């Protein structure tokens, strides 16, 4: 109960400044905020209090952000309190947030204040559409919310309530109810909460299990502020290294600077896994040459950033995505094991998967030996005729003998890869890129690094890949114009970021126009 003691000149009929306990529940539509609200109301009513809840579901029911609000107060001499229908910024006792960014939104609404608010929030993320649809990395920064909670909440109880609920076979509303009980803010006992859940009738056991786990977690005092509960990964060293791979690994460790070891090892693994040991050697040869250029440009003083960056993007460039790669990944035993895990496959159940593939003549032609491929490419009508036979959506039933054998066969075409048309094209592109980076490096170290990073723009399949390549070409060509300027690296970074952010290339074209205006 709040008590702002003041002396009223007019005699008060009751404790004039006593206000109800206010609880705001911020959630996304369909997350069970309604159930939690009903529980809290019932909890208060069972103790003879007056409780009122309001909400504004409307369209927010469909996955939008929404807010539920509860006030509660005991009646006085048979009179019922007049309860407000919405939270007043600066005057909320408890905010329950069912998702971390929604906790952030509640802070922006001003309903979390240091003088009164206990913030109970789940720190799991449910990504908003703008975060998901960004072509690159668009996920909002969780630490900003953690920091804001630190300075706004009187008390915080933050943990992954979603994971806790899933672990206990229930939903987040039960975990939040448990956290509320554990926070010990309302003048009700744990049994009162449990009675409410029991009266609800459905999924009682799992709800109570979840409630109790959350209760304990919230009640165990100031648990260390943690974000996400990631299990420690065993260090890569723990894995036994294939003896055939060892010489390459030794060579890498001997020739490359310490700073680049981790990245280069990951890269080396990727290209060997992609093709073979020989391809791994090619990777190290190229990397050695880039490292030499790096050293010459004074890389030692810059933490060999050029070599580290090259180790990363060269591996990605060499392990370009093609039909062989896709077939290889889809036929691996580890892949099936992962899906079985994800689907929670149990003993006695049978799993089948269907792939949605749409191969085109471009992909098939890329597989052919370079000369044959070019010969066909030079004949558009033949190409189109073949494309009509190949290009169509195919539903591949992976774990049937017929389709598995087909995929297996395609994946075993690795011997053909390095002679293929696609490989020739990719290699030429790669070499031109590395040459551009090395050239830039000589005059402007950072610019060299930036050119290497442009490789990030090339990704995806078919049209997406083509678009990525065109962005890459535009960016690298524009960077070439900038060489010699002191702020070249800066502009290169801006260009790349514009290209990543922008699926339609409008922003990129705008940045290019700006650059051309001052050149």
């Amino acid at each position, binding site marked *: 109960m709040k008590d*702002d003691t003041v*002396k009223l000149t*007019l005699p008060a009929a009751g404790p*004039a400044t*006593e*206000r109800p306990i206010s609880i705001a529940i911020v959630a996304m539509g369909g997350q069970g905020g309604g159930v939690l609200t009903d529980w809290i109301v019932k909890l208060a009513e069972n103790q003879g209090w007056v409780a*009122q809840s309001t*909400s*504004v*579901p409307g*369209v927010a029911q469909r996955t939008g952000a929404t807010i539920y609000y509860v006030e509660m107060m005991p009646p006085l001499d048979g009179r019922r309190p*007049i309860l*407000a*229908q*919405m939270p*007043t910024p600066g*005057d909320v006792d408890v905010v329950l947030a069912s998702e971390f960014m929604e906790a*952030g939104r509640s802070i*922006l609404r001003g309903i*979390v*204040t240091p003088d009164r608010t206990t913030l109970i929030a789940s720190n799991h993320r*449910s990504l908003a*559409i*703008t975060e*998901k*649809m960004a*072509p690159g990395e668009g996920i909002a920064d969780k630490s*900003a*919310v953690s*920091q804001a909670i*630190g*300075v706004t909440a009187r008390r915080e109880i933050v943990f992954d309530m979603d994971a806790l609920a899933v672990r206990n076979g229930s939903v987040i509303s039960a975990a939040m109810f448990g956290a509320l009980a554990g926070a010990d803010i309302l003048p009700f006992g744990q049994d009162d909460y449990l009675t409410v859940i029991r009266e609800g009738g459905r999924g009682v056991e799992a709800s109570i299990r979840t409630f109790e786990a959350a209760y304990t977690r919230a009640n165990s005092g100031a648990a260390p502020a943690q974000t996400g509960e990631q299990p420690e990964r065993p260090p890569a060293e723990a894995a036994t290294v294939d003896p055939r791979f060892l010489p390459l690994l030794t060579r890498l460790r001997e020739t490359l600077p310490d700073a680049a070891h981790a990245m280069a090892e*990951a890269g080396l693994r990727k290209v060997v*896994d992609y093709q073979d040991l020989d391809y791994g050697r090619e990777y190290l040869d190229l990397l050695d040459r880039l490292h030499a250029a790096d050293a010459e440009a004074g890389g030692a003083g810059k933490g060999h950033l050029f070599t580290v960056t090259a180790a*990363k993007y060269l591996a990605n460039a060499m392990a370009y995505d093609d039909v062989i790669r*896709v077939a290889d990944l889809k*036929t691996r*035993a*580890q*892949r099936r094991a992962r899906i079985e895990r*994800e*689907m929670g*496959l149990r003993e006695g159940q049978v*799993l*089948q*998967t*269907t*792939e*949605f593939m*749409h191969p*085109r003549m471009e992909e098939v032609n890329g597989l052919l030996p370079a000369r044959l491929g070019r010969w066909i490419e030079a004949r558009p009508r033949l190409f189109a005729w073949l494309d009509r036979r190949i290009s169509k*959506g195919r539903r591949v039933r*992976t774990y049937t003998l017929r389709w*598995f054998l087909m995929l297996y066969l395609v994946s075993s075409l690795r011997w053909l890869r390095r002679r293929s048309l696609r490989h020739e094209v990719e290699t030429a592109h790669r070499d031109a890129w590395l040459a551009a980076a090395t050239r830039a490096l000589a005059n402007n170290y950072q610019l060299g690094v930036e050119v290497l990073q442009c490789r*990030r723009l090339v990704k*995806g*399949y078919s*049209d*997406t890949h083509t678009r990525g390549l065109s962005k890459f070409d535009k960016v690298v060509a524009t960077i070439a114009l900038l060489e010699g300027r002191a702020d070249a690296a800066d502009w290169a970074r801006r260009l790349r970021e514009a290209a990543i952010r922008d*699926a339609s290339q409008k922003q990129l074209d705008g940045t290019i126009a700006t650059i051309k205006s001052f050149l």
Partner: protein
Amino acid sequence: MAERSFAREVEDLRLSGGEIFSGEGILAITKALLQSGVSYVGGYQGSPISHLMDVLADAKDVLDELDVIFQSSANEATAAAMLSASVMYPLRGAVAWKSTVGTNVASDALANLSSGGVTGGAMIIIGEDYGEGSSIMQERTHAFAMKSQMWLLDPRPDHTCIVDLIEKGFQLSEASNTPVMLEVRVRTCHMHGSFVAKDNVKPVFTLKDALNNPKRDLSRIVLPPAAYEHEQEKIHKRLPAAIDFVRDNKLNEWMGPSEGKIGILIQGGMYNSVIRALQYLGLSDAYGNTKVPLYVMNVTYPVIDTEVADFCRDKDAVLMIEEGQPEYLEQAINTVLRRRDINTRVSGKDVLPMGGDYTAQVLMQGIETFLATNDPHLLGNRPPLPDPKPVLALPEVQRLQTVVPPRPPGLCTGCPERPIFASMKLVEEELGTHHVSADIGCHLFSILPPFDLGATTMGFGLGPASTSAFNVKADKRSIAIMGDGGFWHNGLTSGIGNAVFNKHDGVFVIVDNYYSSATGGQDILSSRAQNANRSTNNSIVEALHGIGAKWVRQIDRTYDVTKMRDTLKEALTTKEEGPKIIVASSECMLNKQRRVKPQIAKAIKGGQRVVKERFGVDEDVCTGDHACIRLSGCPSLSVKQLDDPLRDDPVASIDNSCVACGNCGEVAEAAVLCPSFFRADVIHNPTRWDKFKASLTMAVIGALQRRRAMRRIQFSAAST
């Protein structure tokens, strides 16, 4: 079948005298109607009054016992016209809708109804969808009440007060031969509270009695000269009768001290927030004991002149608290005082915002300003006011502004409308952008990311009609979207009939998801479910043919993105003249899941062979471009960061809320995106043949996998 089952709430409708009703505001209103002896109830669903319609639809038995007829009206005009049963007969009736949108549709009938007047009590329950959480334009219903002269009740947000006013409202309607509107705001409709119930009342005079003994009276029909008579009657008879009734029955309330230098007049609906604001200012306790004289207008139209004059007479100044604009009440107060030459100052919109929610905080500021000018003494001992500004100014909070992403509503997981808009995006890539007229319904979410489709929305069922000006030959055609709900509400005639008649060349997409989904999944004419109380399964396509449409394509599985895309392309490019109509049908996934989930669980438990499907993404095949998300926006399709130093961008990922609608796979295939998506079929309780086939296949596959594993370098950590 509605989104929610109200089987439990129906029991609350049976409560008898003295028992405590505890529940949602809108359900309290429903109970109050039965306590008032209504003969008929109608209306059209929509937030915030959907639950009234839903609970009555589930309450057939209760209604039968009471001889009450309930109809889900075709639209609000139908509902309003239904009230004409009360014109000649002593029958009480009520209709309900979302306002102002519903009142707009109903206006014609309402104007006619209030011209001739009523004999039995006629009440319109208005769900005032204004302020935060509203889904419509921000307007007031007040204007409708004034222009047609219907009384407007705006009860305090308190179940007892609301229920009481409904009963009194019917009496008022009968005493003044005028229909009455009862306005409840969104939060009040969804507010949990309680009241002491009374017995339900069975009407003495029934609809059957009326049909068997028909009556007519030429003077009640809106046709000159009666129409002129009606106007005089309104002014000289009905208004005075209403004023007398409101005053005699004390429908408006005086609270606080009887004397004071200042006073506050408020709309009933504002009461709770005003009390909280006064409490912040140290002028009330939590139980409503206030130090400021209050005049609570539970009836906001008509204004009771004598009451207002009495309240204001000996005060220096009064504050009129009235939400929204224009400030009708403030103007009315001024008129009352000027006519009587009472020189009390009238404040209102000078200290309060013209528009927007009147939250406790907004009211606190307004009242504080009013008091500071007119009676600063009252502010002498105010406690510290709640103030979030210092917190909002903190740099950590400022930074949040740019971090917290907007979270607009969107289509649900597995929504059958998603592939329709994904197809439209694909067509857009090929044929360029088009003028798209959107409509009201879940499909309006197409205007938001990731689809960004739709230029205007002109009202329910009016998507097609709003392309009617674009009936010219051009390189591109207009596209109009309309839902099945809008189609039956009025779109069949206003949109399609209009296009056929005027030979409009545009494309019309009718989104048919078997329900009025956005309002909670109520059945409509073309619903595919069997409904014992209604006639369903009436074909949209047949209706289209019936009205003269020639180019009609029915797509019975919207998830077939390739077909959807090709059909749209054909519609946009065909040489054929006249409207090109595509009916895209698949069941609303929210409703479908509610229907089939228990069935599937039961089948699995019972040992039956069941194939459960879900989609997945191969994380090492996905390159993190997110083109798939830009064509989907499915809540279950998200992204996740991989623990791989070589990767910059998060990859797509599907969580276990996936319902295997297939949209992502179809889109990936139709748009030639990438081969990352797969559908996993898990066979529960497989047959012996299933198991035999699987074990045989997996033996061969396992051997092949082992063969390859032996030959190549194995990385236990790096590869997956």
